[in-house]
């Protein structure tokens, strides 16, 4: 005690950090729960359009994604700046969508197949031409449940 009093006058006792790991673990678990693993690397620029009336996509494993947008900056030299479609990890053509959907559908269990949803992640600066083509392709592939991905806002400015 005497020793403590002597030093206490000069320095502040060190902060107890023994609960720091617990704190960090809490954070870690929080992030593990609320986030999902990124499945694809985006090769196109995607900024969601805004909407107020969005609905949540229910079952994640039943959702197939189609990305549309301009290639990212470092890919522009090679691919040009036209809007492109990305399926999984590669650029694709409209004609490939039908095969892609069939493939994705086959990977689902039979009971889930009618509930398959296609989420269209389309950059807001895209022109409708390519979107229309995709929609027609999806119709041909009988993937009729779609969702236009959009960011939720209270008011569109």
């Amino acid at each position, binding site marked *: 005690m005497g020793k403590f009093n002597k030093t206490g006058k000069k320095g502040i006792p060190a902060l107890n950090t023994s609960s720091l790991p617990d704190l960090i673990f809490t954070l870690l678990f929080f992030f593990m729960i609320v986030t999902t693993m990124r499945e694809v690397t985006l090769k196109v620029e995607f900024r969601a359009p805004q909407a107020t009336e969005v609905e949540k996509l229910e079952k994640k494993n039943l959702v197939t994604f189609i990305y549309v947008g301009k290639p990212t900056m470092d890919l522009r030299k090679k691919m040009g700046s036209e809007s492109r479609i990305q399926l999984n990890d590669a650029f694709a053509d409209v004609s490939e969508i039908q095969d892609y959907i069939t493939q994705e559908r086959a990977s689902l269990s039979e009971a889930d197949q009618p509930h398959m949803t296609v989420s269209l992640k389309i950059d807001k600066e895209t022109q*409708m031409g390519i979107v229309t083509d995709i929609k027609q392709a999806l119709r041909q592939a009988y993937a009729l449940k779609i969702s236009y991905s959009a960011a939720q806002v209270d008011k569109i400015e």
Partner: protein
Amino acid sequence: MAKGKREVPEINSSSTADIAFLLLIFFLITTSMDTDKGLARRLPPPPEKDAKIDNEIEVKQRNVLQVLLNKNDQLMCDGEMIQVNELRKKAKEFIENKNDDPDMPEKVAKDIPVLGGTVMVTGNHVISLQNDRGTSYSEYIKVQNELVAAYNELRNELANRQFGKDYAELTEEQQEGIRDYYPQRISEAEPKNYGGKK
């Protein structure tokens, strides 16, 4: 027993925090807070190949609300140029047809038990949305959003009138009744090229 003889030295745990930090950062990088939200829609099935001729189901003129969006993002609704923010009101008037206007969709009798038996609904109305290949996607989503908002507002109003609650708070059965009363009928028609060459 001598003091301290049996004591095992404690493992130094000061680096646990660092390990946890590493894990945390790993998860921050590899995962995304993907809030998958969007406007849900149902596409019509593809046209049958052998039935090539235009034998679309005859829809009476009064039952259709034409919404056109051209390549300059101009909006035309029922033959009038309007702004996007006016669309919701127009769509609501059209779907609801409060005064049984002969220009608005006709009402048909429908049996919805939750709403107290047979009611007159505008069950055959169609909102036909057509766009050009040059229309911008953000504008298209805005229009889609307004149309969905019109339905949601109508359903909410009905829910409040009938049950004194918001639509979202109703039971599954009540929601279904209200959905039957205001069925969402938005048709995304076959693409056409408006406004010249592209």
